[in-house]
């Protein structure tokens, strides 16, 4: 099995779908001849032809709107929004159109589109190249939101997203593109080459949407994370010395509630980790669900580790980023209760 980084795995997924499905096509800013600013679509135009993978005008609203129209016709467009921070001009198209087309037309029309977009911090991108907007999509009924944390999942989840008949927001943790990152920014960058999940099978396979992965089994507490924070949480668990179970949600809508409930039912303690700012973040929903479904198993208040409620500040990237130290501290607090 070839070893791939996340960029290559995503490229392999797109290559596979373009080859298999003549109705699948890709467009977005700089994705055509150039191959995308993060190189995810590199070589696809040369291999599959200009009309299968082409550049779009700088109009996120236009990109999503035309993708919806193509989807309504019967195509399966995969569009790239260059940074998740720039998805906002398309927000009305996603919320009022893509998410509701099936419902309001009673199934006459639907939008089988996939919106790929790099998200998250850790690359000194400042306020508008670092955000994690997953919670605002999770809040919208009718959108699915998927976030891989490693190359194997990235390929399988992207193929599943493209084959899904509903609109999927596919957020790619850009800090993980070239290697796993556990939040210890002062250490040399790691490579996917030494990572088990970098073995990516050839051809088509899917990781179903709505299936979480237990990354580390443990008895003392449950840690819920996704994307970059899976690696950060793992480092935080190691630092804490606490035998925590780590769950990688992989998709937040649909959400694998069973895996979460089973784990918290077993451990009785829960720490939720995300990079997005805390107030109104997806951690609030997770916390409510765990409280509603596991209340009588809980031994301590649920803890949230998240970004602060300020814009992502350029010079203070590492003061802002919720690193392993904050995860370990939350684990220690959650162990004190009960």
């Amino acid at each position, binding site marked *: 099995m070839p070893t791939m980084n996340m960029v290559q795995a995503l490229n392999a997924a797109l290559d596979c779908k373009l080859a298999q499905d003549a109705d699948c096509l890709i467009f977005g*800013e*700089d994705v*055509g*001849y*150039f191959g995308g*600013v993060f190189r995810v679509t590199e070589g696809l135009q040369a291999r599959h032809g*200009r*009309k299968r993978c*082409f*550049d*779009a*005008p*700088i*109009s*996120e*609203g*236009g990109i999503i709107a035309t993708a919806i129209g193509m989807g309504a016709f019967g195509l399966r467009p995969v569009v790239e929004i260059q940074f998740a*921070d*720039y998805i*906002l*001009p398309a927000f009305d198209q996603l919320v009022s159109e893509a998410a509701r087309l099936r419902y309001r037309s009673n199934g006459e029309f639907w939008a089988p589109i996939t919106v790929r977009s790099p998200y998250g911090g850790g690359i*000194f*991108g*400042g*306020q*508008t*190249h670092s955000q994690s907007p997953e919670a605002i999509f999770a809040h919208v009924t009718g959108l699915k939101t998927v976030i891989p944390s490693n190359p194997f999942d990235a390929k399988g989840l992207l193929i599943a997203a493209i084959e899904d008949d509903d609109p999927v927001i596919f957020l790619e943790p850009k800090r993980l593109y070239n290697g796993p990152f556990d939040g210890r920014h002062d250490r040399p960058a790691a490579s996917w080459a030494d990572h088990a999940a970098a073995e990516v099978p050839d051809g088509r396979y899917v990781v179903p949407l709505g299936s979480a992965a237990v990354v580390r089994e443990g008895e003392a507490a449950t840690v819920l994370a996704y994307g970059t924070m899976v690696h950060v949480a793992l480092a935080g668990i190691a630092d804490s010395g606490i035998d925590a179970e780590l769950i990688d949600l992989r998709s937040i809508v649909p959400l694998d509630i069973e895996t979460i409930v089973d784990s918290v039912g077993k451990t009785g303690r829960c720490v939720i980790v995300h990079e997005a700012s*805390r*107030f109104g973040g997806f951690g609030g929903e997770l916390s409510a669900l765990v409280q509603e479904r596991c209340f009588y198993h809980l031994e301590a208040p649920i803890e949230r580790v998240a970004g*602060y*409620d*300020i*814009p992502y*500040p*350029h*010079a*203070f990237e590492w*003061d*802002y980023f919720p690193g392993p130290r904050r995860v370990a501290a939350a684990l220690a607090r959650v162990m004190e209760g009960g």
Partner: protein
Amino acid sequence: MVTTIALHLHIPEPVSRPGTEADFSWVEVPAAGSVRRPEPTAADEDTRDLPYTLIRVLDEDGRAQGPWTPRLTGDQLHQGLRAMMLTRVFDDRLFRAHRQGKTSFYMKSTGEEAIGAAPSLALDPHDMCFPTYRVLSWLMARGYPLENLVNQIFSNAKDPLKGRQLPVLYSARDYGFYSLSGNVGSRFGHAVGWSMASAYRGDTRIALGYIGEGSTAEGDFHEALTFASVYRAPVILCVTNNQWAISSYAGIAGAEATTFAARAVAYGIPGLRVDGNDFLAVWAAIEWAAARARGNCGPTLIELFTYRAAGHSTSDDPTRYRPADEAARWPLGDPIERLKTHLVARGDWDDERHAALARTLDEEVRTAVRQGEAVGTLGKSKPPAREMFEGVFASPDWRVLEQLRESGL
């Protein structure tokens, strides 16, 4: 009889790519001075030819030609030349500073220096510009302190934006320079609103907005034009058409079908298409549009036709998507060289004085960078980290106060 043919999806593609020779044979360059100049008070219908030509003043010998020639003093021209040269020296040095790990990011405006410098000098000090990240020469023309720029780029303890913003996304209110943001296009409507506010108050100030040709695809551009047209806002709206938006050529923004200046026609406002590498032509167009705005005749759209001679940013390698010799073959030349030639032709400049000015500017930039390095480059010095919690609201709410405490900063 109706014939049915299979439909075909058109995907625009530039004439040249890496490995082929640059080809600008499609660029029509009218002679300097050949375009007529209606009065700034002219009705929109009397300006309908202007979006489809190219207003140029400087001829091949550096002589000013025709009705658009602005009446500029030697001082004004020297100021313009200085600002453009300073921009170029600064860009080159700070780009290198990025390569040396002193900052996280940098963007140059090489070849586009006239586009910020001429309007900055032509407009009044109290007018407001809503910039893109590629009009550093606006600030250079107004004498913005180089140390402030360097400190912002290094995100160090003296960064006027307190380390909160990506390098080059300046804000300089006192210099008529509105706060920049990383998302493109979104301030174009602010220029319109600011100018409407001035009209509302019965003030005399006007606004100027810049947008890249690539970013005209955003709704922001069309929304701004609609509001400007409806309320006859006293605003000058400029499209910098530098041919490239990262790797996408202008055809991806609609340049195959018509010009960017021609977007004005449908909104019923004048559209001027101007040689953006001709300092005098840019000045003249801005002066014309400003007179119009100040006379309550409403907005003007100006396409500044130019070429992005450098890469998009420090993250970009343009040889991956365009021929390496494109910049050298750009038919409208270099704005600095052209203004220099003009000054020489006026008998007001020579190679020696030019070289001396270049040395002075180089030293000014070196001094500013040395000062910035003494404070500290990226990561070596920064404002107090606890200050990152300030300034979200006018007064912080409990969340931020609690988080500041929690952070231990």
